[in-house]
């Protein structure tokens, strides 16, 4: 088994009018921009009730950083009481969604994703020694920070798209790259 270091999860909840198709595309684009391979593992659309439809989605995106390190980010969406409303903006008709939305963000940092150290008991012990002692600073300071602040960037990207009150991202320049 590869060694996995989970990231602290975060949650965004929103209730109101938003562009669901646009948000879907914006998040997918974000993953593409950072060279993640995105997988849509689940897409559920439940029979609409009088209040509206319900949708559940689960995405995960992976990026092989090198032969030893891999990033995995997970996004799950849950929408309730979805109704579509036509809005006229700048003289053009646009279909927006009125719903309750919950987005859970999480992920993990995976070491030895090719299971090269899994062959014998000795190599497994070497793996533990490498991760927990020799490579410890790199695991938390370099790769750990990189994946965490990238996830925080996605968090800010979603907040900005939904135009939340708290969309400011002070840590934007932390990794020295554009969001």
């Amino acid at each position, binding site marked *: 088994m590869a060694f996995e270091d989970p990231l*602290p*999860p*975060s949650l*965004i909840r929103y209730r*109101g009018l938003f562009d669901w198709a646009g948000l879907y595309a914006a998040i997918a684009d974000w993953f593409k921009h950072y060279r993640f391979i995105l997988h849509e593992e689940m897409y559920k659309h439940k029979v609409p009730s009088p209040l509206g439809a319900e949708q559940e989605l689960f995405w995960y995106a992976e990026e092989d950083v090198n032969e030893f390190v891999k990033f995995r980010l997970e996004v799950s969406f849950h929408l309730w009481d979805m109704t579509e409303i036509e809005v006229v903006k700048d003289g053009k008709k646009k279909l927006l969604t009125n719903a309750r939305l919950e987005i859970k963000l999480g992920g993990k940092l995976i070491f030895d994703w090719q299971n090269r150290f899994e062959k014998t008991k000795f190599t497994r012990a070497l793996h533990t020694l490498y991760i927990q002692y020799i490579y410890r600073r790199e695991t938390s300071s370099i790769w750990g920070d990189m994946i965490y602040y990238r996830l925080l960037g996605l968090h800010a990207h979603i907040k900005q798209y939904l135009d939340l009150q*708290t969309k400011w991202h*002070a*840590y934007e320049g932390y990794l020295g790259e554009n969001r």
Partner: protein
Amino acid sequence: MSETRLVVDQLKFTYEGIFDMPGLHQMISNFFYERGWDWIEKLNTEQIFPTGRSVKIELRPFKNITDYYKNIIRIRIYGTNIKSIEVEQGGSRIPLYEGKLMIIFDGYVMSDRYNKWENKPIWWFIRTLMDKYVFKDHMSKADQWLYSDLEDLYLRIKTFMNVYRYVRERNMISHQVLG
């Protein structure tokens, strides 16, 4: 599990009136960024009602001050009936918000953050003994660091919201906790 001590217990700030919600969030996140804290935004909820926006945010910024100690601040922001308004100042119109706001701060000091001293009961016992008697000064330094940063943040928020401030407020939280 590492040992987490509650140092500042539910310090509250309540406000009703005109304020700048995005500016407040920006000020808080900039404060932690400038001081080298890591940022965790655990929960971010925003609901749009006919009476105004309702906001619920939980932040958990933390700072690994040594290999052994970690300071954590938990900030809960609850905003209700937040409506956008425009205020005229010097001939120009400034977009602001009006509503109710409550901010609750908790401060924690986590010791043995890598869980190194918990594998055997004797280690755990030695750790407690060392923490309490031998490294008492280190513990109190971690506490002081937390008080100091939390006090600065609290005062900055009060200044930002332009509320009444007591002149000799600098050591207010330490006095409140230490007596």
